């Protein structure tokens, strides 16, 4: 009872201290933060003559809107540039496997590192965490050579080239490899915190590691998996470098900017389409996303 009262007191003090100036400043900053995006949003609905002859803020006094930009950018190609709907499809074809594969592999490894008893467990964990030190840029050239030519030592072929260049496979593999260190780290943090008694009880009941994983670990890890899935999804969706390097003509949304050059009406509509999916995902799953970001970075 006493404790409860104390908590309420603090609450009262806090509310008392909630200064209207602080709130006001926060709201002003948030508004300033949103203006650039809002400007893009408004512009994407304006006819091209309007965009190029007056600022987007003039629409409040002189409203004029159209959907043409969206229909043009989505369904009409220009020369060698396919319409955006094609890019969209490519992006999904890249993003979905690039999310599923690394998470599956990472959760296996996270479980192994957290609950198998083997020598060098800690060392392995820190090594994987430290692998984040390797910038993507360092892997690009060797990986590209590997995907296109395979691996040979002298005349001996260690890994054949498989002929996968020009397909989506190199992009999936690259995203999988680059996503693994963080995925293993975050998922490990979660799995390692599951109660020891639970796992030991299951072991005593005769469950082997495979059953244990399938029946206990996996169902319990759903929140962690979901939060990292969102993370990886946004990351691959927004990626440009990997797609540019390994894409070989497979075009992604991120790439379209270069091809839409100076046409603001198409550029803005295209950009808005490309940010719509991640922003929708973010708002729908915001709580998981934030939780996922926090895993490991803040001690609870």
């Amino acid at each position, binding site marked *: 009872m006493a404790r409860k009262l104390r908590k309420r007191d603090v609450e009262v003090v*806090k509310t008392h201290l*909630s200064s209207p100036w*602080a*709130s006001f*400043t926060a*709201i002003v*900053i*948030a508004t300033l*933060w*949103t203006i*650039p*995006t809002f*400007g*893009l949003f408004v512009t994407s609905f304006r006819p091209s003559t309007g965009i190029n*002859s007056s*600022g987007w803020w003039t629409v409040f006094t002189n409203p004029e809107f159209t959907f043409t930009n969206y229909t043009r950018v989505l369904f009409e190609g220009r020369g060698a540039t396919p319409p955006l709907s*094609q890019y969209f499809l490519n992006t999904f074809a890249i993003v979905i*496997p690039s999310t599923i594969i690394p998470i599956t592999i*990472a959760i*296996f*490894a996270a479980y*192994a*590192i957290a609950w*198998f008893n083997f020598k060098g467990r800690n060392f392995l964990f*820190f090594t994987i*965490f*430290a692998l984040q*030190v*390797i*910038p993507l*840029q*360092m*892997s690009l*050239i*060797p990986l590209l050579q*590997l995907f296109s030519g395979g691996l040979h030592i002298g005349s001996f072929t260690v890994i054949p080239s498989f002929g996968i260049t020009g397909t989506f496979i190199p992009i999936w*593999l690259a995203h999988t*490899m680059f996503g*693994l260190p963080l995925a293993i780290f975050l998922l490990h943090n979660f799995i390692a915190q599951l109660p020891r008694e639970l796992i030991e009880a299951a072991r005593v009941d005769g469950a082997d590691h*495979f059953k244990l*994983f*399938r029946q206990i670990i996996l169902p319990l890890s759903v929140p962690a998996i979901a939060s990292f899935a969102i993370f990886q999804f946004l990351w691959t969706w*927004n*990626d*440009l470098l990997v797609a540019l390097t390994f894409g070989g003509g497979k075009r992604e949304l*991120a790439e379209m*900017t270069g091809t839409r050059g100076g046409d*603001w009406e198409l550029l*803005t509509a295209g*950009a808005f389409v*490309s*940010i719509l999916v991640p*922003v929708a995902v*973010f708002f729908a799953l*915001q709580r998981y996303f934030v939780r996922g*970001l*926090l895993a490991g*970075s803040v*001690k*609870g």
Partner: protein
Amino acid sequence: MIEIAARQSQLEQAVSKLTGLTLTILIFGALVAIAFALSERTGERVQRFLKYVIFLAPALIFLFIGLVAPAFRTLYLSFRDARGNESVGWENYQWAFTQPEILDVLRNTGVWMIVAPIASTGFGLLIAVLTDRMRRPGLVKSLIFMPMAISFVGAGIIWKFVYQFEPNERAPEIGLLSQVAEWFGFVPTNWLLVNPLNTFLLIVVFVWIQTGFAMVVLSAAIKAIPDEILEASMLDGASGWKRFSRVTVPMIRGTIIVVLSTITIGALKVFDIIRTMTGGNFKTSVIANEMYNQSFRALNYGTGSALAIILFLGVLPLVAYNVVNLRRERSER
């Protein structure tokens, strides 16, 4: 007629892509399921060995092929010529530290490394503190965090539009920055061409994105400060600023450092913003972008690799620091 045919082939392409995608996922799922089903039927002896193969080996193989081996290969390539055929000693590194353009690139990267993390973390901390005592902080926080979900490329377009400049003096400005400058009586200019201002304008875009991340993490850390401590400082009559600088900041010092170093690593690797907004021209290029240019435009794997190694050396101390921190935290548990 041609149009209909084109539409049809587009549709066919779409269908084949979707089938390929579904098949891939099904095959992957089936492989995992089969591996599990078979493994569960083996005896305990086999499993003792098999569990490592199934759970750990895939990740280790991927990490080795994707990160460890390429790191060594890049190191090797950085001492070879453009096609990797002949050894050139330290020439590529000498080139990186003497070529005036590359020195610009290194200097820009340095500016990014210092300004971007401090600004992002500063703004993040400010907003975290301001919203901490707010009654309904949800909307404010969401709006600030939203750029995190927007791609760097999308953000690049958004800000390119803000920085847009109209060369014709009589025509009205369509870029917000130019217009605001005009309202305040300045003469707008082609912002992205002005050095060194343009590098800072690009950093603004990055800060705009990363502040949300800093805010979320710092806000959680501030929430975790025990009420009693704040209460005590209030009873002592500490003012708002004193409470912030003497209580809040020291209490979340560890988190601030994690946020700073995470954002610094991000700033070191920044590529998309520069590619979208200036293409690295007008003296705005950074290592990550120049490395791409050298390798895939100039087709010089030697210099490209040397730049990648320099980038690696820049990130190394930060991650090392984090590893040390992590070790300490884990041994405390």
